[in-house]
C-alpha cells in the first residue's frame, strides 16, 4: 500500500514538474490570420497576392474627383482644417493632412512594389512567365507612383529596395526620378513584359498602359519627343478607341471599355465608396467638390450662342459634367438658386454647394440611386482621349503641326455624343496651344488631371480671386450673374507649384529638405 502511494506520489510530482518547467512550450504563438515572412515567397501564389496588394494603393476618388477642387475649374467644400479645401484656397502648410496622406499612400505602394521585386526571385517553383509578368506589373505600378510623386512634390526620395526602419533617405532630383520612370517603362515596353490585354483579370497593367504612362510622365516634364512617340505607340497598337457615349463613359456602362487604358477598379463586395458623397444634396450627396464658373467659361458652343440662354448649344460635355439649375436630377429637377425649394439650394446646409454647381460626372443615378453606399464605378486613371490630346500637344509644342494634330483633337471633339465642330486647320502654334489647353480642361474636368496640367503650364495664378459658381438670370436685375459665397483664393507662384513635404516626414527624416517657401 505504502509502495503504491509512493509510486503515485512520484508520478504525480513528475507530472507537476513537467507541466511547470517545460518553460517555452506554448509561448510560441503565431498570429492565426497572418502569414509569417519566414514562410512567404515559396509559391507562385505568394507573388500573385503581393502584387494584388500593390494595386490597392492606386489613386482613388480623392485624386480623381476631389483634386480638381484645388484648381481653377473646381472648388472643394470647407471642412475641418487640413483638407483639400485649404489647398483649394491656397491656405495650406506642411501639416495639411490631405497632402500628407497622399504622400504616405504613394510610399506605401512603392514599399509593396519594392518588396515584391526584392523577393520574387526566391520563388523557385512556378510559371516563370507569369512570375516575370508579376515583376513587370510591380515595376509599372512603382513607375506610376513615382510619376505622381515627382509631379506633385518635385524632388522626392527615389527608393527602389525595401528599407530598414532606421533608413532616412534624402531627395533625388526630379529629372533623375523622371529618367528612372522612363527607363523602367522602356524596359517593360521593349521587352514586351506586359500583355496587351487580359481576358479575365481586366484592370491589370498592360503594355498600352506602360506606353501611355510614359507619354504622361514625359509630357509633364516637357520631354515632348518622348511624349509624342509614346502616345503614337499607343495609337499604333490599334486596340483603343473612344467610347461613343461621353456621359456613360463615367458610369458603369463605360467601365473596362476600349477607351480605358488604366484605372483603379472597384467592385461590390470589395472596395466601394459612397457614390454620391461628391454629388448633389438632393440625391443624398455631400457636394464635396463643385465645378465653378471658370470651368463653364471654357466650354465652346456647337451652334449659335443665345444671349438669353448661355446654356443653349453649349458643348454637351458641360451637360455631362455639371448639374446646373433646370437640369433633371434623380426624379426631379436640379435647382440651387437661393430661393430653391430643394435640398440643392446653395449654402442651405453642410451638404449643399457653396456656389451652386454640382458635379454630375461619375454619378450613375439609375444604378446607385437605390443604394449609394456601395458605389463601385472604376476611377479612370488613363484613357485614350488623353493619349490623343497628349499626342497633339507634344506635336504642337515641337511645332510639328500637321493634319495628325487636327485629327487627334477633332476625334475627341467629334465623339458621337459630343459632336463639337472640328477645329479648322491653319492655326498658329500659339492658337493651337490655347485650343488644346481648353480642350483638355473641358474633356478631363474632374478626372484628376487639371492640377498637373496647370502646374506644367505654370498657370496656377488663374485660380486667384473670388470663387464664382452658378450662372443664372437674376430676375430682379434682369442680368446674368454668378452665385458666389465671396470666398477668395490665393496662389503663391514661388511656392504653390509644389506641395510641401509633409511635416511628419521632415520631423523624422534628417536627410530630407522642404520645398521652397514652406
Amino acid at each position, binding site marked *: 500500500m505504502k509502495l503504491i502511494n509512493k509510486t503515485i506520489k512520484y508520478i504525480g510530482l513528475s507530472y507537476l514538474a513537467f*507541466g*511547470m518547467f517545460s*518553460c*517555452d512550450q*506554448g*509561448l*510560441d*504563438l503565431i*498570429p492565426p490570420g*497572418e*502569414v509569417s*515572412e519566414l514562410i*512567404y515567397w515559396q509559391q507562385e501564389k505568394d507573388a*500573385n*497576392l*503581393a502584387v494584388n*496588394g500593390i*494595386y*490597392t494603393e492606386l489613386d482613388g476618388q480623392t485624386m480623381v474627383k476631389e483634386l480638381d477642387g484645388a484648381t481653377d475649374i473646381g472648388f472643394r467644400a*470647407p471642412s*475641418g482644417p487640413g483638407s483639400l479645401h485649404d489647398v483649394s*484656397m*491656397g*491656405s495650406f*502648410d506642411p501639416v495639411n493632412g490631405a497632402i500628407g496622406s497622399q504622400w504616405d499612400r504613394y510610399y*506605401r505602394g*512603392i514599399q*509593396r512594389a519594392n518588396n515584391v521585386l526584392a523577393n520574387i526571385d526566391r520563388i523557385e517553383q512556378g510559371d516563370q512567365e507569369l512570375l516575370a509578368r508579376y515583376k513587370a506589373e510591380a515595376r509599372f505600378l512603382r513607375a506610376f507612383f513615382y510619376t505622381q510623386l515627382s509631379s506633385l512634390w518635385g524632388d522626392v526620395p527615389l*527608393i527602389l529596395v525595401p*528599407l530598414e*526602419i532606421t533608413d532616412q*533617405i534624402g531627395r533625388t532630383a526630379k529629372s533623375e526620378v523622371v529618367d528612372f520612370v522612363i527607363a523602367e517603362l522602356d524596359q517593360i515596353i521593349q521587352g514586351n513584359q506586359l500583355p496587351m490585354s487580359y481576358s479575365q*483579370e*481586366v484592370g491589370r497593367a498592360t503594355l498600352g498602359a506602360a506606353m501611355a504612362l510614359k507619354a504622361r510622365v514625359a509630357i509633364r516634364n516637357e520631354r515632348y519627343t518622348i511624349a509624342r512617340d509614346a502616345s503614337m505607340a499607343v495609337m499604333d497598337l490599334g486596340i483603343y478607341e473612344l467610347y461613343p457615349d461621353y456621359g456613360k463613359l463615367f458610369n458603369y456602362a463605360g467601365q*473596362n471599355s476600349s477607351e480605358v487604358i488604366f484605372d483603379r*477598379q*472597384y*467592385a*461590390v463586395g*470589395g472596395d466601394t465608396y459612397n457614390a454620391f458623397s461628391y454629388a448633389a444634396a*438632393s*440625391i*443624398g450627396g455631400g457636394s464635396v467638390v463643385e465645378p465653378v464658373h471658370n470651368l463653364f467659361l471654357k466650354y465652346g458652343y456647337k451652334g449659335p450662342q443665345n444671349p438669353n440662354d448661355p446654356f443653349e448649344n453649349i458643348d454637351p460635355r458641360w451637360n455631362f459634367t455639371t448639374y446646373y439649375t433646370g437640369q433633371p436630377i*434623380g426624379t426631379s429637377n436640379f435647382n440651387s438658386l437661393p430661393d430653391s*425649394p430643394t*435640398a440643392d439650394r446653395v449654402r*442651405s*446646409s*453642410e*451638404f449643399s454647394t457653396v456656389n451652386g454647381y454640382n458635379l454630375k460626372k461619375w454619378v450613375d443615378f439609375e444604378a446607385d*440611386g*437605390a*443604394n449609394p453606399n*456601395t458605389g463601385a464605378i472604376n476611377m479612370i486613371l488613363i484613357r485614350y482621349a488623353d493619349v490623343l490630346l497628349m499626342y497633339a500637344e507634344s506635336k504642337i509644342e515641337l511645332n510639328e503641326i500637321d493634319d495628325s494634330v487636327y485629327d487627334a483633337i477633332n476625334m475627341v471633339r467629334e465623339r458621337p455624343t459630343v459632336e463639337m465642330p472640328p477645329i479648322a486647320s491653319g492655326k498658329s502654334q500659339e492658337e493651337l496651344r490655347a485650343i488644346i489647353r481648353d480642350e483638355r480642361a473641358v474633356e478631363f474636368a474632374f478626372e484628376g488631371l487639371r492640377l498637373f496640367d496647370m502646374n506644367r503650364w505654370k498657370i496656377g495664378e488663374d485660380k486667384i480671386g473670388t470663387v464664382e459658381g452658378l450662372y443664372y438670370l437674376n430676375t430682379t436685375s434682369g442680368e446674368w450673374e454668378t452665385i458666389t*459665397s*465671396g470666398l477668395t483664393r*490665393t496662389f503663391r507662384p514661388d511656392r504653390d507649384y509644389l506641395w510641401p513635404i509633409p511635416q*511628419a516626414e521632415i*520631423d*523624422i527624416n534628417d536627410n530630407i529638405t522642404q520645398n521652397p517657401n514652406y
Partner: protein
Amino acid sequence: MKKRLLSGYLSIKILIFLMAIQLFYPNIHKGHAHALYEEVPTSIKSSERNTPTLNLMADVTVTGTVTDQNGEPIPGATISLPGTTIGTATDLDGKYSLTVPETAELVFSFIGFESQRIKIGDRSIINVSLLESTSSLDEVVVVGFGTQKRANVTGAVSTVSGEDLARRPVTNTASALQGTTPGLSIQNNGGAPGAESTSIRIRGVGTLNNSNPLILVDGVEQSLSTVEPNNIASITVLKDAASSAIYGSRAANGVILVTTKRGEDGAVKITYNNFVGWQNPNFFPEPTDPVTWMRLENEAQANVGANPTYSETYIENVAAGTNPLQYPFADYEGGIFNRNALQQRHSVSLSSGGKSGRIFASVNYSDTDGILQNFNNKQVTMRINSDMYATDKLTIKTNLMYRNRGFSGPGFTGQRITQALLHINRNIVMEYPDGTYDLVSGQWNARAMAQEGETSNISDDVFGQLGFAYTINEALSLEGNVTLNTESTDGFVFQNSLAGMRNYLTGDLVNVGGWFATSKLSESQMNQRELSQRLYLNYDQTFDKHSIQGTVGYEEIYNRYKQISASRDNFYSNDLRDINAGDIQNQTTSGYSQEWRLRSFFGRANYSFDDKYMFQANVRYDGSSRFGEGKRWGVFPSFSAGWRISEEDFLKDEDLFSNLRLRGSWGQLGNQRIGLYRYLNTYNLNNGYQFNNNLVPGTAITRAGNPDITWETTTMSNVGLDMGFMDDRIEVIAEYFYKYTDDILIELPIPRTIGYNAPVQNAAAVSNKGWELAINYHGTPAPDNGFQYSVGLNFSDVVNKIEDLKGTGPFFPDKFTVWTEGESINSLRGLKSPGIYKSQADLDKYPATIFPTVTIGDVIYEDLNGDGVISQSLYPAGDQYIMGNEDPRYEFGVRFSASYKGFDFSMFWQGVLRQQHSLDGALMEGPNYTNFIPLTMAREAYHPERNPNGTWPMVRSGNSANLMESDFWLQNTSYLRLKNFQLGYTIPQNLVANLRVYISGENMLTFTETELFDPETPRGRSQFFPHSKLFSGGINVRF
C-alpha cells in the same frame, strides 16, 4: 489545438494530484484549513484549543457570549489569559467556555475590534460586547496571494471597504472608487449605459503604452466596471513595486485587487438593497437661443461677403413660434435627450456558514435608461462563493459567477447622434406629426438617428473558479485554483431604410441617400476565453519574537479571443431583422482571432522581529508569448522594510504617537502591454483588390515587426510614514515615490517613405515622482448611537517626465500632443496666441499670419522663431510651443460622514486643482460650418461694432485659420465636485434585523471655470455619450 487542451487538462490533473496529497498524510496535526480563508491572520490561529489547560490554582469555568455593538455574535473571537498559553475561541454562535484560575483577568480580542480586559472575579458567565476598533492597524489587508495585517505591510497599499462601495448608488464600481484613494486617479469619460468609459491610473502615466492598472477580481484579471459593487468585500490598491512585484510583468501600472464576499459563519442572513434614481445630462454645453443662433449664422456669411442664410421673416417666425413646419428650428437637445432617465438597481444576497462550510450567494439586477433616448442597459449578475470543509485540513472553494448584460439602443451610437447634434444645421423639421423626418442633406437628422433602427449587445459572461486550500502542517499550507473566465458578446446593429423622408425645404418626399437609403444589418460575435491556474505554497511560523512567512508559486494564463462578423443590406423590410432577410449582393464577412500566454513563477519572504522591524522580498519570473525567443523571460524583484518606531522603548511612553512607522521599498516591475505578435514581420492577408468585378485576395506587410523587443521595466522606490494620534483616531499616511520606466515600447515614428506603419521599439524612458497624503479622523465611538462623525482627506500629486527618447524626437503622436525629452508624456503643443486682432495696430505688431486672408477679428498667432511665417512645427523649426499638458495635478478627495440616532449623513467631494483641456471641433467652429453654437460663443464672438470686447474670433463661414491648435483654445478644467451625498435613516422596528432608507445624489454640484463641457470630458471633438448626474432613493434591509 491539442496543446491548448493539454494545458487545461494538465491543470485538472495537477489539482486532482494535489487533492490526493491529503490522502497520503492523513495524520498530521489538526489545523484549520478554512481559517486561511477567513480574514484572520494566520499568526493568531487558535490551535490552542487543543492545548491542555494548566492547573496552577483553583480553577473556575467561565462561559459566555461575545457579541459586537449590535448584539451580533462574533465567532472566532479569542479569549486568553495573559502570560500563559491558556485560551480559546468562540464558536459559531459567539459562545465560549474556558477553565481558568479564578483570580485571572481575561483578554477578549478579535480582529477589527478593540480588545477588552475583564477580571473574572466570582463570575462564571461573562458576556462581552466588543467595540469596533477605529485603528486600521488591526485591519487585515488582502495582498498578492494572501493577506497581511495592516501593521505588517511595508509597501504602499491602500484599501477601500466593500461597505463604502456598496453605499454609493452607482452601477459602475470604477466610478465609486473615484477620489477614495490617494494616488488612484479615475476619470469618467462618459458613455452609454453599461458602456461607461473610465480611465484608471495609479500614480500617473508610467508608460507611453497602455497605462491601465492590473485589475484582479479574486486573483483573475477582469474589468472593474463589471464587478457588482454589492458583491465586493474589499478592494486593495497596490501602488508601489514592493507590494505589486509578485504580479511581475503585469504590475507596472499598479494593481487593484478586488475580493468578492464570502459566506459568514452563523445563521442565514439575507440582505436586500435597492435604489431608484433619475439621471439628467450634466454639463452638456448650453446652446444659444434660436434667434441669436440664426443671426450669428447670417453674420458668419456676411463676414465673408455672402448672402444671409436666414431671412428676417424666417427669424421672426421662429422667434414667434408660428408655423414651425414652415419655419422650423430644430431643438435637437429636446429631440434626443431623455430627461429624468430612470435607473434602478436591486440586489439580494444571502450568507450562511456552519460546520461543513459556508456560502455567499447573490443576485443583482440593474436597469439603466440612457440620457439619450432609446438607450438602455440591463444587467443581471448571479454569484455563488462557497467554501466546503472537506476535512479539517482541506477546504474546497468554488466561485461561480454568471453575468448577463443587455445593451440596447437605436441604430446609431450615442457618439454619432451627439455628432449630428453638434454639426447639423437646425432649419429642419426633426420629425413631422405623421412620423416622417426631414432628410438633412442625406443622413444626419439627429432625431431620426436616435429613433430609428436597433442596436443590441448581449453578453454572457461566466466565471468559474475551483480552488482548494490544504493545511499540510502548522507552518505549511498549499493553495491553488483553476479558473475559467469567458466573455461572449452578440452584437447586432440594424439601420432602418427610411423611404418616407422629406425635403427639408419643401416638405416633399425625396430620394433618400446616405445611411437611410438602405437598411443594413451588421452582426458580430466576440468570444474571449481565459483559462488560468495558480498554485502556491505558504509558510508561516513564529519563533519567539521572530516571525517568518514565505510563499512560492506558479501561475499560468492562456487567453484566446475570437471575433466574427457579417453584414447584409437592403432588407425585405425594416421589421425583418434576421440576416437571412437581407440581400446577399453586398454581404460581407470578416473575422479575427488571437491568443496569448503568460507563464510565471513567484515567491515572497517576510520576516519581522518583535513587531518592530519588518522585511519583505518578492520575486517574479515571467515568460510571455508577446516576445520572440530569447527575449521573453524577465525577472522582477522587490525589497521593502518597515520600522515601527512607536514600539521602541524611547517612544513607548510618549503620549503623542499611538503609532509611528517608517516604511521604505524598492522594486522592479514589467510591462508587456503592446499588441500581439509585434516581434514578427507578417504578411497581412487583408489587402485584396478586384479585377473586372471579381474579387482577388492580396497581401502586404503593413507594419514592420521588431524581433528585438522585450519587457518594459519599471523601477520604483517608495518611502512611507504612518502616524497615529489619539489612540489612532487620527491617522496620517504619507508616501513619496519615484518611478522610472525604461525600455518603453513605443512606436517611434519612422519616415513615411519607408512605407510601413512604425514597429514598436524599446526606446524610451519616463519618470513619475509624486507624493500622497491621507488624513483620517474618527470621532469617538458612541455606543449609545449619539453623535459620531469621521472625516477623511486625501491628496496627491504626480509629476510626469519623459527622461529619454534615445536622442530622437520630438514625436507627435497626434495633432495635439508631443513627446519630447524633459516634458510630460501628455504635453500639449500649439501656437502661442496673445488674443485676437482688434486693430490695425495689432496687425502691424503681428504681421506674420498663418494664411494671407487673416485679418481683424481673427486669432493672432505669434511668430516665435521670427521667420516671418507661422508654421506648425515645434519651435525653433516652427512656431508651436509646449503650451501645457493634460496631467491632472493635485487631485483630492474629501469624505465626511456622521450619524446621530437613526440618521446618517455622508458627503464626498472630489476634485483636481490643475488640469487643462485643448478644445477641438464643433464647439469652436460654430456658425463657420453651420455647427452647434454654444452660449459662450454667442456671447464672446468678436464683432467690431456689435461686440468689440468679444474674446472669441469673429465668425466667418468656412474659416479654418482660427481653428489651429493653440493656447487660445486651452481650457482650464480644474474642478471641485460633490460626487455624492447621502442622507439615510434607520427605522426603529422589530420586523427585520435592520431597515434603512436613504436619498442620494451623484455629481449634483460642480465648480469649474469652463462652461463648455464637463471637466472630465476627454480631449477631442466633444462627440461622445454625454455625462450624467443622478438623484436617487433606496432602501437597505437585512433579515
